[in-house]
């Protein structure tokens, strides 16, 4: 492989820096390992670089400066709810009594941690109309998996093992069918109607004695409210199936209406979306799993139980599907989520989703002035625009618009999802953004669409202000280079 033509902007890898013996001393020198263990169980070499703290600080500071977070700028990434992550949450999560508590600490010495989990769980139950939540799952996808394992066990207990189908609308997140497959369920994909909704008549046509679960999100990934959700739930329930609510979009309705009241039996939340947990560049997430009364016994272990004014972890739950994680919860995130609940209270949370919907609709009508919006009606917390028409006229695609936004200091919306909208841009502003920010973004987007008509090449070349230009993904996949190796 030849050397890159110009690599001046490349940041060296940590492995290319440092000198052996240069590390900053955090602990005293240990004795040779052979003085403790037989040589045959020890490794020969440990080929890691030694760098000073200053080198390491500069290296990762430099990498942070090549990374875009909410703290840097507007992040309208649809279905990801990139709202402000309050700094007080992090301060509280790092309190010594939380951060240094060992998971095997006896319950009566962990009452604070258990209280956090209990208060959070009770608040979620009320907010979403569920009987109980498990805080065990690490992320939304894992909660989906746990929910489907619950469904599988529930039907097994009822002698209904023939229920092996999971119904998933075509607008669903990709995790839904993937989770279903991990439980041995077969996926039935359901086409959305012309209004972008699930048609209850269609549901009646596909449900039957083999229906296990229908997985939906409401509002759906087009940002549209499934107002006939009751009819859909009735059809599934009459067929003996369960309703699952994918809570990725809970920011649209929190405090105003509840999945439990819509007829959902199971649901998850992504607290790293709705409840301001920082997403951290792809996790850690936190995926509380809620269930209606008839499924409480099946929740993953452990479950936090309150006895009077004391709390304990309950592992002795014979019908449970078992744990899905090494330990009890992504606890530091439970602290953050609870802090966020305290910062808002019921009334504040209700306002949160109202303002999220307000911001999304405001942007939708502004953007509709110059870009196609395939579902021109009141949306919820997010909406989709399409560059289909623009592409026909100018050759500029959704991808090019996205890259042009990067050049102008914005994160791009979610692209090419949901799959049913061609050249899709899925935009979710969240409630923490001001009108000025939204106006600024709309103006920039308007300018980009104008540029598409006058100078499309500029957009096809974008981005040019970023540390690298468009990345060769084909080469990355054809010649996978997944790690550094020492050159010999």
């Amino acid at each position, binding site marked *: 492989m030849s050397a890159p033509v110009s690599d001046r902007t490349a940041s060296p890898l940590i492995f290319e820096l440092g000198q052996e013996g240069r590390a900053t001393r955090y602990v005293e020198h240990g004795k040779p390992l052979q003085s403790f263990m037989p040589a045959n169980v020890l490794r020969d070499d440990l080929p890691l670089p030694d760098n000073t703290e200053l080198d390491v600080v500069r290296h990762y500071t430099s990498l942070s400066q090549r990374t875009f977070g909410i703290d840097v700028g507007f992040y309208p990434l649809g279905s990801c709810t990139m709202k402000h992550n309050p700094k007080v949450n992090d301060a509280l999560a790092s309190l010594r009594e939380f951060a240094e508590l060992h998971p095997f600490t006896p319950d009566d010495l962990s009452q604070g941690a258990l209280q956090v989990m209990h208060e959070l769980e009770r608040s979620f139950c009320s907010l979403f109309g569920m009987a109980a939540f498990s805080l065990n799952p690490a992320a939304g996808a894992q909660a989906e998996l746990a929910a489907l394992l619950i469904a599988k066990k529930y039907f097994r207990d009822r002698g209904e093992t023939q229920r092996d189908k999971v119904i998933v609308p075509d607008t669903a997140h990709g995790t839904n069918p993937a989770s279903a497959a991990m439980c041995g369920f077969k996926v039935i994909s359901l086409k959305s109607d012309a209004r972008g909704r699930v048609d209850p008549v269609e549901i009646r046509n596909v449900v039957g004695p083999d229906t296990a679960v229908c997985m939906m999100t409401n509002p759906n990934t087009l940002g549209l409210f499934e107002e006939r959700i009751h009819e859909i739930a009735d059809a599934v329930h009459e067929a003996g199936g369960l309703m699952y609510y994918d809570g990725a979009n809970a920011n649209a309705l929190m405090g105003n209406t509840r999945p439990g009241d819509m007829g959902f039996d199971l649901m998850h939340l992504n607290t790293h979306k709705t409840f301001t947990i920082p997403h951290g560049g792809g996790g850690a997430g936190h995926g509380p799993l809620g269930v209606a009364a008839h499924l409480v016994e099946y929740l993953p272990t452990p479950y936090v139980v309150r006895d009077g004014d004391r709390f304990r972890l309950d592992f002795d739950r014979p019908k449970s599907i078992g744990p899905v994680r090494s330990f009890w919860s992504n606890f530091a995130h439970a602290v953050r989520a609870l802090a966020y609940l305290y910062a808002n209270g019921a009334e504040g949370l209700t306002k949160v989703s109202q303002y999220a919907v307000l911001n999304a609709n405001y942007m939708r009508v502004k953007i509709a002035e110059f870009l196609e919006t395939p579902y021109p009606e009141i949306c919820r917390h997010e909406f989709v625009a399409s560059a289909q028409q623009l592409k026909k006229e100018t050759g500029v695609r959704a991808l090019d618009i996205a890259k042009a936004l990067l050049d102008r200091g914005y994160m791009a919306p979610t692209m090419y999802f949901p799959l049913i909208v061609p050249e899709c841009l899925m935009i979710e502003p969240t409630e923490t953004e001001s009108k000025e920010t939204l106006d600024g973004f709309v103006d920039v987007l308007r300018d980009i669409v104008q540029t598409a008509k006058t100078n499309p090449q500029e957009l096809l070349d974008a981005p040019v202000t970023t540390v690298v230009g468009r990345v060769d993904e084909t080469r990355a*996949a*054809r010649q996978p280079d997944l790690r550094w190796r020492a050159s010999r």
Partner: protein
Amino acid sequence: MVQPDLLYSKEHEWVRIEGDRATIGITDYAQESLGDIVYVELPKTGKAVEQFGNIGVVESVKAVSDLFTPISGEVLEVNAALDADPAAVNRDPYGDGWLVKLKLKDASETKNLLSARDYEKLVTA
């Protein structure tokens, strides 16, 4: 581009039959719509495959497409060169980019396939 001397499936695979041997690949139209192909997952040699059954997967950067055999038979050989050079499927779908060679089970199955002309109609429709 459709090759006149081949037979086709509606799922955009082609088959070239020579005696009791069949060579299978994906069409130019298929490679074009998938974009840059980065990986091809093929069956093991010796495996018996049924007409229109799933025998593997073709991956591009952002899409995955099932591979169906246009005809039944036993897998004699797979194109191992594609491991190192999956781009051959894009470059030369009817030549170097072939996928699987089969020992034919039932030559009469060809009646279920499309002629070059009919396939051309399908993709230009």
